[in-house]
């Protein structure tokens, strides 16, 4: 089935390719991190009132809060973290996955993380909440899909 993609929005693969290109400019890790720190400032920050335990994603090293809204068939994410690098990486995740249909979110393979060398930030051993965050984003997508998506015909 062909998904309808509006002309003004790139698909998730295009955005992941953009991110990979942006990171290819830096061969030094310090520069990469400086870029991530810069990105952290662009985050669609969660409302302070939403920074509650119910929206907290459990992670041992840094705190991550995440909420989602369903707007006109698309899932919009808001997040925050107490660690800057975590925040920068979440900004990247949101850039790829926010304002997408539930199906787009569920079908996206987040390969850019590997390509820009941030795999360790998502590994379960780091348990910094990012892996849990991606899972939570997909759960939101699934929940909205179940609630608003086409119902199966008997």
């Amino acid at each position: 089935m062909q998904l309808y993609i509006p002309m003004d929005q790139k698909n998730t693969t295009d955005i992941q390719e953009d991110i990979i290109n942006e990171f290819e400019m830096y061969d030094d890790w310090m520069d990469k991190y400086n870029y991530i720190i810069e990105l952290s400032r662009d985050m669609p920050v969660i409302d302070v009132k939403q920074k509650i335990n119910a929206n907290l994603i459990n992670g041992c090293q840094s705190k991550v809060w995440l909420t989602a809204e369903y707007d006109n068939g698309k899932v919009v994410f808001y997040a925050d973290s107490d660690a800057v690098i975590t925040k920068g990486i979440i900004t990247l995740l949101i850039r790829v996955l926010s304002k997408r249909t539930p199906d787009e979110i569920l079908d996206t393979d987040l390969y850019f993380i590997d390509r820009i060398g941030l795999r360790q930030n998502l590994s379960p051993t780091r348990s910094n909440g990012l892996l849990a965050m991606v899972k939570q984003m997909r759960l939101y997508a699934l929940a909205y899909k179940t609630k608003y998506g086409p119902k199966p015909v008997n």
Partner: protein
Amino acid sequence: MSFDIKKVRDDFPILQQRVYGKPLIYFDNGATTQKPLPVIEIVNTLHRQSNSSIHRGIHYLGEQVTEAYENARKTIQKFIHAAQPHEIIFSAGTTASINGLAFSLGERFVREGDEIIITEMEHHSNIVPWQMLCGRKNARLKVVPFDDNGVLQLEKLETMMNRKTRLIAVMHASNTLATINPVKDIVSLAHRHDIPVLVDGAQSVPHIPVDVQDMDCDFFVFSGHKVYGPTGTGVLYGKEKWLDMIPPFQGGGEMVDSVTFEKTTYNQLPYKFEAGTTNYIGAIGMAKAIEYLLSTGLRSIAVHEQNLLHYAVNKLDELGYITIYGRAPLKTSLVTFSISHIHPYDAGMVLDKMGIAIRTGTHCAQPVMQHYGIEGNIRASFAMYNTLDEIDSMIEGIKKVKLMF
């Protein structure tokens, strides 16, 4: 004995590598230490030449490895100055030792309304097993607080002890505050009330000489992997009279005398507490690590490590934006700290890319973090193979981190 840092470093192959193109600086020794060649080699050789189940085979290999295993026990006995070799029980590590003891002691001595005393600075491994025991028996857990310098408030301990107290469990050295606790005084205080004491030596054994008879503690535990030995190894020391009184914590092979379906009688010490096929190669490797430690010289290692500690603390203090947690007068060679306005995780991520391995988070001691009202901090823990130059590199790294965020 002079301390030859270059020779020591050459003995640890893992230290020779570069990470992200930078020389590896390993400051996570509080979590686990690296292994010297003699340990790596004996584990290898045993697997190649001598592997065979201990205490069972009547054949050549079985006898060889059994003898090595029992010699390892004697090495450990001498190392911590235990009165008898059979007071040394091999375990999978500090955590396994404490859990086993909590079960056995609890079965025999702890009843509803009884009390166990621990301290506010304990590692989760010396909190949770006692909490679980108290849950099973409807007993109470009491906690001796420490002051903001990281010193135990022993006058509080005095008021907590009573006829219901069944055990005091205390760490010898703190994995977050570095405090070396006055365990000998605690034991003597406890014994006046006939209360046994467990000392958790996980963070002391690699750094300071231990004499369990002089300390007079009733139980002492430590891990092999934190003292340059293989992972999955450790020790539960107990005075013979206590080990005789408490039941085994695991049932299985080796720990039995006779088994019928009606009744099982238990083997003598130490085998009563070593059910199943033990990690005998690990235990022999741990003894080899102890021999290495002793031949390098406990005293010269301690001098070197104290030098590292004081250098690091001074350099961190000089930066002016570092908070150090733990200012006890007697400390082992680790320091936990935070950088003003910077999340420990951010600092750790950047330092990692500079080849510097430090630990961030709560270090399995959340109550200590709660004491200071912080979510976590950064820990640099030093071992015999670390150098002042490495500390300089860490300080330079922290300066860079400070500029980045």
